[in-house]
């Protein structure tokens, strides 16, 4: 091939690269933000198609079906239980109007700039948000700006098969799982959060505020825990599958909904709490920076935290409701397993406090990145 052809190709490649790089700057962006003041226009969603990415079952697919029909709107869902995929999708500029924000990743998601501020003052149902959620520091940035609306919560039990694991009074220490008798009998998620938090408490430290020396001790114990585990569960469904199949007897990061899911398949599961405390979880919905229909997204979020949707979500997910006006309506139902007073009605309660270090930590304390590095070292097997 002649030099001219080669040179032409090189110029074309350079131009292509320049064009592509020009469109590749960090942090998605470029989307619409909710505008205006006062309550959101109730017709903001009329005829709109909203796109959602995140945990399946938490997009209001069933719960807001009638509302969507009334407004002639459509919901497009991209399901993923992997927050890494969700973050990468938004970060690379893919357009989504709504996305899941999970408690453990919330701070990084906020600091990472993938969500835009949520105009809670314009959401009619925000005033009824349970105080433990409304006041949570996890949904805020350092300036106190709110980025997500919790829609479901639970209190983070371990879930197990009582026919295969004898656990007295549903109580267990996280350190028990480091013993040989638990070898290959449980799964956990591939994240340091709960494991480090519990182990830190078990060793007498003030989790999640750990010094480097304390983190080192925690990581040493966590290594035994990880080596004792059968595998990493990729999501709750996966963990349930493994317990139903008899492959494992317990999942560290459980959810009461797993009990109902397993019961449908003829397997009895139960749940309990670690001696080292409870670690609540919540999932929120937030508006990505790439949203094209942010006004409608805000209205949709307002519907998701409304009483009617909340009662249905609680029943479908066996989760706690986030709307104080909906608590009464769940009594006697499948989701009537939560103690609201000790969990979410007191904003100072520890259940939904930080389980991992916040992004800004005092000098001499370990950051979440330190935790992640320690976890990476453990799971590498090096």
């Amino acid at each position, binding site marked *: *091939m*002649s030099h*001219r*052809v080669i040179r032409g*190709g090189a110029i*074309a*490649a350079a131009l*292509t*690269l320049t064009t*592509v*790089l020009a469109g*590749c700057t*960090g*942090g998605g962006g470029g989307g619409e933000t909710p505008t205006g003041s006062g309550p959101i226009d109730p017709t903001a969603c009329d005829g709109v198609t909203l796109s959602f990415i995140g945990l399946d079952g938490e997009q209001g697919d069933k719960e807001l079906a009638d509302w969507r029909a009334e407004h002639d709107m459509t919901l497009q869902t991209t399901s993923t239980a*992997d*927050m*890494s*995929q*969700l*973050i*990468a999708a938004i*970060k690379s500029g893919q357009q989504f109007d709504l996305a899941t924000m999970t408690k453990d*990743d919330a701070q*990084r998601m906020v*600091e*990472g*700039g993938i969500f835009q501020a949520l105009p809670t003052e314009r959401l009619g149902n925000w005033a009824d948000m349970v105080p433990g959620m409304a006041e949570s520091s996890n949904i805020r940035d350092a300036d106190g700006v709110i980025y997500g609306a919790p829609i479901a919560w639970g209190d983070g039990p371990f879930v197990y098969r009582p026919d295969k694991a004898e656990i007295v009074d549903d109580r267990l220490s996280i350190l028990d799982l480091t013993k040989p008798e638990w070898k*290959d*009998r449980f799964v*956990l998620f*591939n994240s340091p959060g709960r494991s480090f938090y519990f182990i830190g408490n078990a060793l007498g430290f003030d989790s999640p505020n750990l010094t480097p020396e304390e983190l080192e001790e925690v990581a040493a114990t966590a290594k035994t825990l*990880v*080596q004792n*585990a*059968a*595998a*990493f569960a*990729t999501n709750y469904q*996966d963990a349930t599958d*493994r317990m139903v*199949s*008899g*492959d*494992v007897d317990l999942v560290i990061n459980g959810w009461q909904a797993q009990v109902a899911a397993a019961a449908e398949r003829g397997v009895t599961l139960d749940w309990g709490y670690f001696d080292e405390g409870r670690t609540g979880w919540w999932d929120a919905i937030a508006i990505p920076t790439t949203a094209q229909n942010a006004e409608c997204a805000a209205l949709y979020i307002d519907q998701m935290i409304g009483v009617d949707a909340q009662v249905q979500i609680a029943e479908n997910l066996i989760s706690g409701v986030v709307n104080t006006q909906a608590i009464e309506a769940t009594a006697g139902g499948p989701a009537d397993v939560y103690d609201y007073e000790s969990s979410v009605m007191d904003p100072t309660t520890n259940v939904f406090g930080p389980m991992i270090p916040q992004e800004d930590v005092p000098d001499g304390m370990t950051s979440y990145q330190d935790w*992640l590095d320690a976890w*990476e*070292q453990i*799971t*590498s*097997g*090096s």
Partner: protein
Amino acid sequence: MKPNRIVAALQLAPASVYYSALFGAPLLVLVAYSFYTTENFDFVPEFTLDNYVTAWTSEVYRTYFIRTLRISAITAAVIAVVAFFYSYVITYTLRAHRSLLYFFVLVSMFGGYLVRIYAWRSIFGTEGIANSALMSTGIIAEPLDLLRNGEFAIIIAMINFYLPLGILPIYAAMQNVGPGQIEAAQDLGSSRLGAAGKIVLPLALRGVTVAFVFTFIATAAEWLTPQLLGGTEDQMIGNRIAYQFGAGFDWPLGAALAVTLVVVLAVLLGALFTVVRRWVR
């Protein structure tokens, strides 16, 4: 430019544009990102070699790379051997049924990737089909570690997924080795296995090499199979790359790891091709 060269350039244009846009440009972007700096969870175009220093010197990533190369090399080697004999059987031994046997190869590619991973999940595990069968027949008293989630499960599953990728080039290469050459070897006293090793293998070696290379590259980039079939210390470098592009918020490091993998594979496979070329001569 001469007319025939213009025609050649025009003929190459569609493929060149296609690969430049869908392969070359993303790869160049990846290379560019690998020199970026990460600040406050964002990547900024400030040149740095730190990502490569981390990728090359970190004990953690070295462990991931070595594990990845070991798993991929074993998988690709087993596939090359199995694919060679399967192709041999199709081409020479059961030649009358080759359409059916070839169809079996293609059929094995029909099943969804994820579905097949979950099928293997039901086979491996403490109470998986494999351990349960061995225990119920009294062959073993306790579940075998080997048949739980782990490296062995990953390798077996990947052999299943990528075997067709190995068979196709070897089968194609064997079409150039006529049955007459094998018959001639046997007439001269060689066994069937000897003919396969001394006649067919050297002549189809390029196909075997391509089969190894295809499957080595494909498996080295795996992340889903180790995630779903591996234990807690069996993740591959693909899992770490995927993580850095997601919750790790460190695209530059993820890009450096990915580029490093490409370079390592290119060097290793370049060496392999050199050795094979000399051997064939």
